[in-house]
């Protein structure tokens, strides 16, 4: 096998692998198809074409696979699109293991094409775009090498290096053309179907449960995966939001774990109002991403209204109802891979609750302490407060004491009989749930109503939105302040409230998130409206909001871009003009001789190969040809004009041509007669 052939086959196989991966990132393909394809690809890359000798016999395996997939579809285990994509992948796997022939190569490439089309139908992941480009580049290279290889005589090497340069240029133009087509082709769809959701990379890592149990080891704080993305209105414009995102609250602690006072779930509705709000509500458009893994809605503290929820599933997107649960939790009714909804929250400062607004059992629960609570807790709280009775001031005093006296750690000893006493008096170290539990119970021992809240703390700006990571999961305390309602007091040291994951990992994931956000807004969600915006921006640049003056005196970026394009256009025109002007112009005598030769050709005067006009004239004179008397002066005048420095006068060329034409006509008449 020639070296170029080996490279071509490797590129072909890798291209097919990229196409299969573009489907696999959706996470919907059956695991056994992934395994089969991976094995085939590895064997093919290692040069082991296992089906080379029995291609037809092994094709029967595809029938078996088709039957298995068909049964899965009938049983409802997978849908038809997934089955078709899986089958395309397995056809490709079979072809990879077959003998490399031109027909096999074509089938591998075409099955790859079907696979990337299937991948487009299955997922909208950013990784899909990368695999699409990889498939395009690798397959193009393999195809081009195959085309050249077919024309290279046997025994000669395939010119791989020479092929790559023009091909790379071509592929670059193809990608640019694809982008242009994508932007400009009108989105006039017959049937709108939203993007399908896919589970993404890895299982869900967080979520809010019905209870909070102290103890165990903390791992969630080190997880950088993004669970929530929100766009706020009005936009705070801050890089780090440092806000509390509330999931739910707990009011009963039994010494080991927190629960809520039971409240029967209210009926399903599309908009849930938790508490009334004014005109200054903060609007949020929230996306709960696949890494979240729960159905509890999350909103900025303090949520007022939540609704318009949509669940994204593998089969598409649909609207779902909401259900209000105990502890202020709002839960989505139907499961999905990811969700999108809208929320309105009160501005920071308090929930606005009055004690009388709360149900009686909840009022009682806010002061409940476990029966076997260590008495040192109350004693310590009383000693720290030193007579302070105002709830908010007391809470802040206790929080400051906890932050000062105790340390934050994620390394826990595991389950103990009294985790709170262990935290306060033995280990004197714990995580956010310990700090929040300690503050809440210490307040309650002093007759101040408080409860535990869980959710997330943070908010990192990416483009126009804020993201929240799994490591931002947090617990804090709500203190009931008369006239203000529940006010947040956080006993956890500020440095440990947000995610504790590696900075490098966070930056990497933030970068990925930024690129993926761009991908989603610019590619997956690109619509006719965006096209109109592009067209409008080209025709009429957008005005700044409120007529604000640009802080910079420099022209806008758009002007620089337009100037660059205009400059490049001018340069191209100049180059073209230079070439045209530099081109050697045909001599006037040359045009004359061309006209003469055209007349001679029309008269069917036979000419020898490479015979010049003077040679022809000499030959015709020798042979006594009837045209010779007319041709001789024409030839002499041409030679004088071309080489003798006596250019043709005005009208002389037409005069000479006319005489030759008359001679030719006379000769034609003579022959006819």
């Amino acid at each position, binding site marked *: 096998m020639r070296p170029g052939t080996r490279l071509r086959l490797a590129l072909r196989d890798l291209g097919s692998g990229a196409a299969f991966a573009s489907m696999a990132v959706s996470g919907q393909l059956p695991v056994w198809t992934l395994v089969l394809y991976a094995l085939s690809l590895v064997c093919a890359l290692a040069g082991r074409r296992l089906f080379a000798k029995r291609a037809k016999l092994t094709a029967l395996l595809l029938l078996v696979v088709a039957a298995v997939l068909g049964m899965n579809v009938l049983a409802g285990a997978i849908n038809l699109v997934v089955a078709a994509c899986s089958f395309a992948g397995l056809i490709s796997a079979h072809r990879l293991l077959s003998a490399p022939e031109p027909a096999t190569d*074509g089938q591998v*490439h*075409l099955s790859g*094409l*079907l696979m*990337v*089309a299937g*991948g*487009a*139908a299955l997922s*909208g992941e950013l990784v*899909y*775009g990368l695999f*699409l480009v990889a498939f*395009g580049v690798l397959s*193009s290279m393999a*195809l*081009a090498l*195959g*085309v*050249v*290889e*077919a*024309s*290279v*005589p046997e025994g*000669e090497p*395939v*010119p791989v290096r*020479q*092929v790559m340069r*023009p*091909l790379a240029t*071509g*592929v670059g*133009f*193809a*990608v*640019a*053309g*694809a*982008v*242009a*087509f*994508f932007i400009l*082709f009108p*989105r*006039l*769809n*017959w*049937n*709108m*179907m939203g*993007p399908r959701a896919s589970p993404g990379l890895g299982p869900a890592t967080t979520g809010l449960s019905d209870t909070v149990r102290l103890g165990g080891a903390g791992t969630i704080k080190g997880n950088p995966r993004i669970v929530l993305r929100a766009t706020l209105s009005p936009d705070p414009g801050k890089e780090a939001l440092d806000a509390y995102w509330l999931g739910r609250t707990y009011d009963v602690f039994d010494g080991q774990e927190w629960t809520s006072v039971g409240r029967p779930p209210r009926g399903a509705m599309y908009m849930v109002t938790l508490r009334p709000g004014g005109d200054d509500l903060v609007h949020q458009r929230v996306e709960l991403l696949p890494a979240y893994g729960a159905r509890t809605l999350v909103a900025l503290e303090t949520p007022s209204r939540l609704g318009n929820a949509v669940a994204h599933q593998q089969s598409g997107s649909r609207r779902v109802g909401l259900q209000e649960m105990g502890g202020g939790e709002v839960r989505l009714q139907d499961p999905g891979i990811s969700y999108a909804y809208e929320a309105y929250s009160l501005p920071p400062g308090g929930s606005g609750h009055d004690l009388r607004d709360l149900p009686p059992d909840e009022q009682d629960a806010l002061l409940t302490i476990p029966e076997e609570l260590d008495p040192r807790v109350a004693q310590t709280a009383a000693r720290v407060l030193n007579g302070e009775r105002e709830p908010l001031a007391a809470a802040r005093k206790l929080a400051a004491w906890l932050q000062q006296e105790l340390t934050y750690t994620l390394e826990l000893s595991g389950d103990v009989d009294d985790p709170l006493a262990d935290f306060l008096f033995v280990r004197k170290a714990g995580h956010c749930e310990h700090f929040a539990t300690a503050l809440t119970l210490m307040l309650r021992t002093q007759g101040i109503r408080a409860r535990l809240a869980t959710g997330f703390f943070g908010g990192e700006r990416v483009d126009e939105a804020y993201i929240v990571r799994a490591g931002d999961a947090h617990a804090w305390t709500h203190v009931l302040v008369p006239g203000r309602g529940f006010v947040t007091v956080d006993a956890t040291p500020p440095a440990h409230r947000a995610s504790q994951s590696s900075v490098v990992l966070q930056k990497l994931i933030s970068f990925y998130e930024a690129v993926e956000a761009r991908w989603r807004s610019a*590619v*997956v*969600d*690109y619509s006719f409206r965006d096209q109109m915006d592009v067209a409008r921006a080209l025709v009429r640049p957008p005005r700044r909001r409120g007529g604000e003056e640009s802080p910079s005196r420099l022209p806008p970026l758009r002007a620089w871009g337009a100037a660059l394009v205009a400059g490049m256009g001018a340069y191209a025109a100049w180059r073209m003009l230079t070439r045209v002007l530099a081109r050697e112009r045909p001599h006037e005598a040359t045009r004359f001789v061309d006209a003469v030769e055209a007349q001679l050709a029309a008269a069917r005067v036979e000419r020898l190969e490479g015979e010049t006009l003077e040679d022809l004239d000499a030959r015709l004179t020798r042979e006594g040809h009837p045209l010779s008397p007319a041709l001789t002066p024409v030839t002499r005048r041409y030679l004088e004009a071309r080489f003798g420095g006596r250019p043709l006068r005005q009208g002389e060329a037409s005069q000479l041509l006319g005489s030759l034409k008359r001679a030719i006509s006379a000769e034609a008449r003579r022959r006819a007669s």
Partner: protein
Amino acid sequence: MRLRPRQWWSRLRARFRLPRTLKVTRIGRTYLVVTFGVGLGALNTGNNLLYLLLGMLLSMVVVSGVLSERCLRDLSVRRVGTDAAFAGEPFAFRWAVTKKRGHGFALTLSEADSPLSGEGGVGYLPSGVDHVVRADLTAPKRGPVPLAGVRVTTTWPLGLFAKTRVFPLKGMLLVYPRRGYACVDPGEAERGPVGDAGNPRRNDGTGDVAGLRELMQGEDARRIHWRKSAALGKLLRVEREREERRTWVLAVEAGLEGDALERRCEEVAALAHRLIEEGHEVGLDTVDGRLRPAAGSAQERRLLRALAWLGHEGPRGEEEAA
């Protein structure tokens, strides 16, 4: 000169031929079908990723057209020709191809509008290099084959489309009669032995003994080497350095047409080849004229050329072979 219908049709086609012709290959057809399907899917679902894929597929088609055009531009071709072309068997034919600017890839060359089958290829043609492309062409029958032009085709870059450019290049290829075995007897020699062999005592050739071989049926018994034959128990004949040279004048009878003429030409060509190989002088008598007997490869070439032109109108010069 009156044109035959085939020649007339060939000229008409050459006159109205497009500067480039495009043919979709087998893989290209499937590619277009898939592209159409992706387009339908994109329009139907509104899935932007399908639009992106569709854009890429269509861009590839455009890029394919541009790159193949660049490949065929600034190209010049001339015929180098062949040594000898016999009907019904492949013969080596050569073209010289040059590209003034840029590089050429995956070029396939063949003769346009001619009955010659076969093609030659070049994988990579650097700029400014005179590259000779060799092809094994096959002509179906003997006679002069008018060559209208050279067809250069490329499937570069992706093999989806075959773009063709025809370079008008008039020429003529004379195809000799099909080669075969001479099964018929050439008949009596026109004259007896000449030269040294004319001596009746030296009827078995002249010069030293070159070897012995078994006597074949019908061969002269006077050439038997009796002593060696007796020793080995079978008849052996003597072969000398210079075998006897006789003269034959082969004839293609007048009035033959079609297949009968073809068969007779092939027989005569085979006979002439055999006789000339044996060192005899061979002449030819046809309706077009008489070729006087001579020996050697040049005479064989003359005989073949005369047989190739038999039944065809046109020049009989020496320079007709392309």
